[in-house]
């Protein structure tokens, strides 16, 4: 058991001559809600993409629970326990809400069922489908989306689509969940609701949360520790209060 759930060592990537991220050393303890902030183009989403296998880091590596995950494919990294949401919502928009979550449940070992079993409708298929549906409903209940379960995902209001994306990521049974601007486009009411939900899933599902957010009020309410990035390098790391009051951070954000 490693001391940190996620540990990145000198993580960096460059696209041609552009060094998008350099020397990122992030250490997240188990059960933490960890924030990553920084102005636009600071490399936050790029770090997410490296952690989920979309990009291969050019330097450095990262470990989840002591296991090196660099070089694994997106699917493998998801199976190892990192799930994510996207900055611009990527739901399966032509599927119903509950089916979106059931896609997330697809790879859970208890719902293993070969395609021949499904094609010839053996009893196992019906059992698996029923259990998946129940499980998905339970997850939706946490997010207050149970009533909307049969609506098409694209017909949900924006705030609920964000929640559904988190629900779907949660369905893959991750150890670490990466939320890319979860509160973007939400009204204050919905944001307050989101704070409650993120804390609740952290406690109930034994999760660690790493999130990117621009809403400083949200960040200061929810995050225990922060990494502030600017121009692809780490500006400051530490507990939230210190980071947000740091003159360098204020300068990077407000300019000056």
């Amino acid at each position, binding site marked *: 058991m490693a001391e940190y759930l996620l540990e990145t060592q000198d993580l960096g990537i460059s696209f041609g001559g552009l060094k998008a991220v350099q020397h990122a050393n992030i250490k997240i303890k188990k059960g933490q809600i960890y924030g990553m902030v920084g102005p636009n183009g600071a490399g936050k989403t790029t770090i997410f993409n490296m952690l989920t296998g979309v990009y291969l880091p050019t330097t450095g590596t990262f470990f989840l629970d002591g296991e090196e995950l660099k070089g694994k494919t997106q699917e493998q990294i998801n199976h190892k326990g990192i799930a994510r949401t996207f900055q611009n919502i990527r739901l*399966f928009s032509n599927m119903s809400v509950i089916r979106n979550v059931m896609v997330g449940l*697809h790879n859970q070992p208890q719902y293993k069922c070969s395609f021949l079993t*499904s094609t010839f409708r053996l009893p196992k298929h019906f059992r698996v489908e029923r259990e998946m549906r129940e499980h998905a409903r339970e997850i939706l209940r946490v997010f207050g989306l149970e009533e909307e379960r049969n609506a098409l995902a694209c017909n949900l209001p924006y705030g609920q689509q964000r929640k559904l994306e988190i629900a779907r990521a949660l369905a893959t049974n991750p150890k670490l969940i990466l939320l890319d601007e979860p509160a973007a486009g939400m009204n204050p009411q919905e944001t307050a609701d989101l704070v409650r939900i993120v804390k609740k899933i952290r406690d109930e599902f034994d999760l660690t949360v790493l999130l990117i957010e621009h809403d400083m009020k949200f960040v200061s309410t929810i995050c225990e520790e922060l990494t502030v990035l600017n121009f692809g390098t780490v500006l400051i790391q530490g507990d939230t209060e210190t980071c947000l009051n740091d003159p360098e951070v204020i300068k990077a954000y407000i300019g000056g």
Partner: protein
Amino acid sequence: MAEMTTKKNRFQNGKWKNYISYIVIIIFLAILIIINLTKGLGFSDKSTLPRIAFSCILAVSLNLVVGFLGELSLGHAGFMCVGAYLGCYTANVLRTSGNIPELVTIILSMLVAGVVAAVFGFIIGLPALRLKGDYLAIATLAFGEIVRCIFKNLPFFGGAMGMSTKLYDGNTLFIIAFITLLFVVFCCQNLINSKHGRAVVAIRDNEIAAKAMGINVTYYKLLIFMVAAFFAGMAGVLYGATIGTIRQETFSYNYSIEILVMVVLGGMGSINGSLIAAAVITWLNITLQSQLSGALAPVKSIVYALILIIIVVFSNAPAMKGFRESINPRNWRKKTEDAGKIKNDAAAWDRIPTKIRMDDPLSVDTRTTYADSPVPPDVVVKNRDELYVKEETGKEEE
């Protein structure tokens, strides 16, 4: 009671659509068998019916790739070609090797054809499915032509002259063909309406998100490609048994396009649509061929193309869409429900004394109070509280 509700829900969810194709095919087949037993079908009908059946199989299987997986494949006739040649070759070998019943021969050869076609699907799919959109279409198109040219130049399979195989008995071939079609529809529908089908549709909807959810994209793309190839191979054997001589020029690029036309006309991702479109187009094709012969033969393609254009234009016309919506029984109920709901809502809102009347926003009615106003049935309670609080504070300010 609980049983009743689940049944009702099943119909409300539109799952009846899954069963209707089986029912229609079985009734159609039963009628044909009865006609054949009493009056006897004409010779042309006996060859038309299996052709309709294998066209339906081809359209349904291609719909798996194009409609559900969302990848454009233009080499479907290539898989059919592989199946036809190898399946019929197997049948020929089986016939010479001993007295195996014809029914067993054709079933075995269909299985062999399916497996070989699926293997080809795997070999082609593994490199080609890394490509996207137009590039995959070109790669599969090339595959179809390559396969055709290989069989053309193999003396083993009759070369350019074609390979002859035994015609199957016309009185039972259409029954076998339609039962095979039932099997294919059963498999496709079950595969799509399962967790695997959900994964496939997820890949079509958003491949990046599907990957991030841990869906093995390569596996599912290959699986669907191979399943589609398997069924196309089976259709190839039915083709051989109907026509008697397998000629490689049948499986040209044109035939792949024709299957694609069936899928597109029937609606991407709609198995029932593919069945209807395949049946109509095949029937149209055969009828035109027999009606416009001799000097009129060149007109055939023009008439065929014109009819296709007319179908496409009309099926997408807004008025036609509206008509289809209006004749869909599910929408009738919805419409009356909606109308009733709107009426109820309006009545409920009318009962609430509002400060501002919607028909005359300038008239502010200050006499009514909010304390004892009736609650409209469709207003969510938590919103109501919010509304009242807001209104009351507003009043205080006055």
